């Protein structure tokens, strides 16, 4: 029976109908296009009043910087934000999806979302795809039960930590955290520490770069400091620029 070739809105989820063709193409030598990755340094820490998340802003496509100022701290709920590392499309899609599920849940229950709800939704989605959805996340937020910080790995395992780093620059950032973190940080101390950790990732890791984004979440208030620090300005710009005379005849 022939299928109607009509693009009816799908029920949802992934469609695998091009897989066989793509496999055939790669056997014939056609290279699949590379994906946008967020090489990344993402960090989170718990301070005395809540959670601070930080991220760099470079998105890479192979060795090329595709986006010098992308946003890696994704909104999940007014009191929950999530930083994403890995394949850019996966982190964006998974955080958008869970964000809408949380909104529906809020309408259903009439209560503020809890961080563990977001955590469970994310981990069950990632686990069911067995790590093929490559999103490594740092999830943080403050709800009625207090501040929480979790890391979620692409295969679906999670950790609950007082400070966490993920991404290719995670070792550089963790070095800073391990030496300077202590409990009971103030807001300014926390933001300074997060910025230092991200800068350490930016300058020591090739996959991270550009600017620092910070998000401070406390009970009842969230501050998203986009481009909190710009340690990599474009220097030595030619004043004259390139001036082309109009209508160069071709």
């Amino acid at each position: 029976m022939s299928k109607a070739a009509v693009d009816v809105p799908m029920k949802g989820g992934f469609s695998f109908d091009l897989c066989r063709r793509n496999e055939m193409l790669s056997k014939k030598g056609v290279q699949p296009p590379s994906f946008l990755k967020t090489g990344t340094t993402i960090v989170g820490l718990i301070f005395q009043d809540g959670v601070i998340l930080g991220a760099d802003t470079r998105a890479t496509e192979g060795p090329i910087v595709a986006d010098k100022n992308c946003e890696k701290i994704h909104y999940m709920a007014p009191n929950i934000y999530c930083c994403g590392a890995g394949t850019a499309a996966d982190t964006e899609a998974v955080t958008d999806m869970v964000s809408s599920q949380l909104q529906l849940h809020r309408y259903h229950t009439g209560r503020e979302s809890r961080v563990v709800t977001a955590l469970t939704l994310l981990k069950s989605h990632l686990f069911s795809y067995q790590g093929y959805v490559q999103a490594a996340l740092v999830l943080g937020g403050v709800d009625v039960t207090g501040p929480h910080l979790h890391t979620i790995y692409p295969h679906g395992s999670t950790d609950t930590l007082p400070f966490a780093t993920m991404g290719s620059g995670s070792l550089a950032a963790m070095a800073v955290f391990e030496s300077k973190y202590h409990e009971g940080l103030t807001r300014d101390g926390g933001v300074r520490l997060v910025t230092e950790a991200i800068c350490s990732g930016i300058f020591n890791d090739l996959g991270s770069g550009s600017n620092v984004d910070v998000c401070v979440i406390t009970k009842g208030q969230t501050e998203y400091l986009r481009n909190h620090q710009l340690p990599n300005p474009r220097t030595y710009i030619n004043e004259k620029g390139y001036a082309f005379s109009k209508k160069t005849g071709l």
Partner: protein
Amino acid sequence: MFISLSTMEALWWPWSERIASPSPVTAASAFSFRPSPLISREFTRSTKRSSSALSGLATDAQTLYQRLVFRHKLYQLREERNMKPETFASLVSAILYEKRFGPYFCQPVIAGLGDDNKPFICTMDSIGAKELAKDFVVAGTASESLYGACEAMFKPDMEAEELFETISQALLSSVDRDCLSGWGGHVYVV
């Protein structure tokens, strides 16, 4: 089997395309391509104010183009208005991400004017990761040279004439250094 294979290879059009939008009222997009009768299809003028171009494997570019035109027409029937470019970008992203594990070999570039004639440009990789930019976006086989050329030649707040020149020069210089692109370009100023 042989025939379909050779057709596919002949139809691989690695294009370079680039869109830049500086001033508040114009967005210009430029494409380079090998001559082919199917060019007009690959460039969708989906609304008067937004357009997209697709680079990559030709068969996927055509299929994607047809799907997008279909979805846009449905939207127009339902909503009785044109889609904003931001919405269109989300639509393209969703369609591409649906095929996450068997993707279309296609990178779209979307440009248009949103509310209040604010220019909007965005590109995506083949699985729909949106990359919004304030200055320029590039896609295609010569994308690496285009990044360099645009980075050097772009200035904020250019007028339409100057933008047209800049975009053409950047495109042509990059394309001249790429074997897989060539034969000139089309520039669309929105």
